[in-house]
């Protein structure tokens, strides 16, 4: 186990290194931030001074080394928009996005697991067709569209939930559902096809031949096996949510990472973008490793070798 973790960590380093290069290149092709940082009245001289101050007059490889050195010390530079260090700016947004992603995920699971299983067990019945159809529609609807609709329906017309912002439990319902419905749609499809495959396995036939009740056959023997690939997919979806909630965050004025990213990209606030990409990448990698551990725990066939 320990050895396994060490090996995983050894894999993470080159990936993070590659990410640093991708990010560095991206940021440097975005061009000269100086034009955006200074007011329109600034002279060419002002620009030169700022460029030198930012180290932008150095050769590219040198800039990269300086950058890597700083990053290793946890210094991603200052956000020129906020005039504060970039890393804490990113970190203080993480909880909001985490919260949203986690609740959305939960909603997705709560909807998708029963729907997917019913759909598979009752395959080709009317119920299955309805669930399949709804899940395809859920997947095909653009996120922001659904968000605005939910606001109009549940807040403006019915007055059940607050429109936007982050606050009490009632605030998270609509944004989490906006994301959760999309997730549920995808997961339902996945769980259905997974369960279908598992229900045709020999050991399900064995379980039935033992005289087990169908609930146990499905709930114990099929579900547990069906869970294994679903865990992987859920982790994939969760990690993609960390950077992927930005549309929903904008609609619901949810102060998470997504909003910070949109603002920062629009402002060319590259220190923040870099820090955010790094942090997200790190979260993704950590989640992947955790998934791996859970996966191994769930499936006794996989050993740590």
């Amino acid at each position, binding site marked *: 186990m320990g050895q396994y973790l060490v090996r995983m960590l050894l894999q993470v380093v080159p990936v993070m290194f590659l990410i640093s290069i991708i990010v560095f290149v991206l940021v440097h092709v975005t061009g000269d931030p100086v034009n955006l940082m200074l007011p*329109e009245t600034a002279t060419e001289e002002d620009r030169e001074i700022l460029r030198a101050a930012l180290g932008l007059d150095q050769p590219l490889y040198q800039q990269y080394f300086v950058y890597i050195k700083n990053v290793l010390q946890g210094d991603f530079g200052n956000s020129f928009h906020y005039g504060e260090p970039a890393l*804490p700016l990113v970190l203080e947004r993480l909880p909001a996005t*985490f919260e949203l992603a986690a609740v959305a995920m939960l909603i997705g699971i709560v909807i998708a697991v029963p729907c997917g299983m019913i759909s598979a067990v009752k395959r080709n019945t009317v119920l299955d067709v309805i669930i399949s159809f709804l899940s395809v529609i859920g997947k095909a609807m653009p996120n922001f569209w659904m968000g605005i609709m939910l*606001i109009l329906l549940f807040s*403006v017309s019915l007055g059940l939930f*607050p429109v936007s912002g982050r606050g009490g439990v009632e605030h998270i319902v609509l944004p989490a559902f906006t994301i959760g419905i999309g997730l549920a749609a995808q997961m339902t499809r996945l769980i259905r096809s997974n369960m279908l495959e598992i229900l045709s396995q020999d050991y399900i036939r064995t379980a039935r031949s033992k005289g087990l009740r169908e609930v146990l056959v499905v709930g114990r023997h099929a579900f547990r096996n069906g869970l294994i690939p679903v865990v992987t997919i859920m982790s994939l979806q969760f990690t993609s949510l960390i950077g992927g909630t930005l549309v929903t965050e904008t609609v619901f004025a949810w102060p998470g990472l997504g909003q910070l990213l949109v603002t920062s990209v629009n402002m060319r606030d590259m220190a923040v973008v870099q820090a955010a990409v790094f942090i997200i990448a790190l979260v993704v990698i950590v989640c992947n490793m955790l998934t791996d551990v859970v996966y191994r725990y769930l499936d006794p066939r996989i050993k740590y070798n």
Partner: protein
Amino acid sequence: MKNSRLITVLLLVVLVLSACSGNNGNSSANNGGNSSTNSEAGNGGSDSGRTGDQAKLVIANSADIESFDPHNNNNTYSESVIINVFEYLVKNGENQEKVPGLATEWEMVDDTTWRFKLREGVTFHNGDPFTAADVKFSFERVAKDSSLKQNSYFKHITEVKIVNDYEVEFITEYPDPILLNRLSKMGAGILPAKYIEENGIESFLKNPIGTGPYKFSSWTKDDRVVLVKNESYYGDAPQWEEVTFRMIPEAATRVSELLTGGVDIITGVPVTDIERINGGEATKIEAATIQRVLHLLMRMTEGTVTADPLVREAIELAIDKQAIIDSIAGGMGTVTRTSVTPGNFGADPGLYETSLFDADKAKQLLQDAGYTNGGPEVTLSASTVYKEIAEVVAAMLTGVGFQVNLDILEPSKFTETYNSKGFKELFILGVGNSLFDASNNYNRFLLENAAGETDYNNPEVEELLQAALSNMNPEERAKQYQQVQQHIANDRPTIYLYQMQGVYGVNKRINFAPRLDEMFILDDIKLAN
């Protein structure tokens, strides 16, 4: 046995995840000091901050403030919020006349020296007294540090001399007829010298203090700024216990918040929602003219089609500005042939509330200019903010025979191109004026500034503008600017589409009169009855 194992795994995952987010919270608490603890207070207070609570006000803007540093801010949203925390020496009165703020009296000693008497008995939010040292500190900071966004407005202030604790002298590099205007705009906010020198600017920005009627409570970025009443304010007692500025980027969401009573005032109401808000039981629309005038700037560089005055005239005549206002702006706008609108120094009323439109003549002009088959090809650039307007303008130009390439740029790309003077023939620019002075409008046509942008070059105008820059005689100076306006209207390095209005949605429990300068002066916002 198996189940318990599964549960353990799931619990473990949840624990690790929550530990992760917990850590992040902690680390931001370490780095963010007060802001993170405060943000929780802010969140908790949000429900009680909803309308209905008499002493609490919630305002929704479309963008977050940039920072609590009044010297390092460059947008109106920021100023409209922090103007309640940091005060200026001089304030704008109802008709933009200068009235006492933190300075009670002022006089011009000579062309480059101004003396200000400071208000006594004023304290910062931490209890420190406000004195001449704070004025010196504040202005020398913004004048000397070129990395501050407001620096360029103040860099000609060479020194602030302390005469005594309550008297200062401003020394400028050259005669500045609009120094008072500068002292009443963003960038002129007074910071606490002692506090900053003791704690450093970073710590100050996390827990900013000023002299204003409202104190900083919390700022959750991209979410909300919460201000609370300054109990020891020297002026009339502030009337709101707590004011929350929320950041809601989506217009549809802002409107929904207003309609459901989540907020009291929203900015940037889409014109199509005006009827809906006015029809709402508890909501109404308030609109007011603002300083922003939409320009259509034209490149006069040798060799471009818009170098031909006939073409430029055709462009002005081709565009039906009133129609644009009536449709896209929902009637909320004023046509103008100058950007120095009423309320600004040097305005020429003869050019206001008037516009030229004659599509037939525009066609004729193009014929005269030699475009007999196929009109000239022009590229029209605009930011996505003005996308609709650009589309209509393009259609109108196409209508009289132009071949228009529409070039819509995402805002920061637009700013980048603008700052590097990279536009082709035409571009649309919204220009505000926080100085309330014609110089702010016309300095772009100074030879030096116009080079590469419009390449406007009229020696007469250049002479007038240069003279007005440091002319300390107001009447003469106003005349000079009025002459410039006539020239610009004839030369057309730019034409004006219209002067915009700020459209606000307001809960009926509130009386709110929107301002020309788009500020939220919180104590002017009152509970109805």
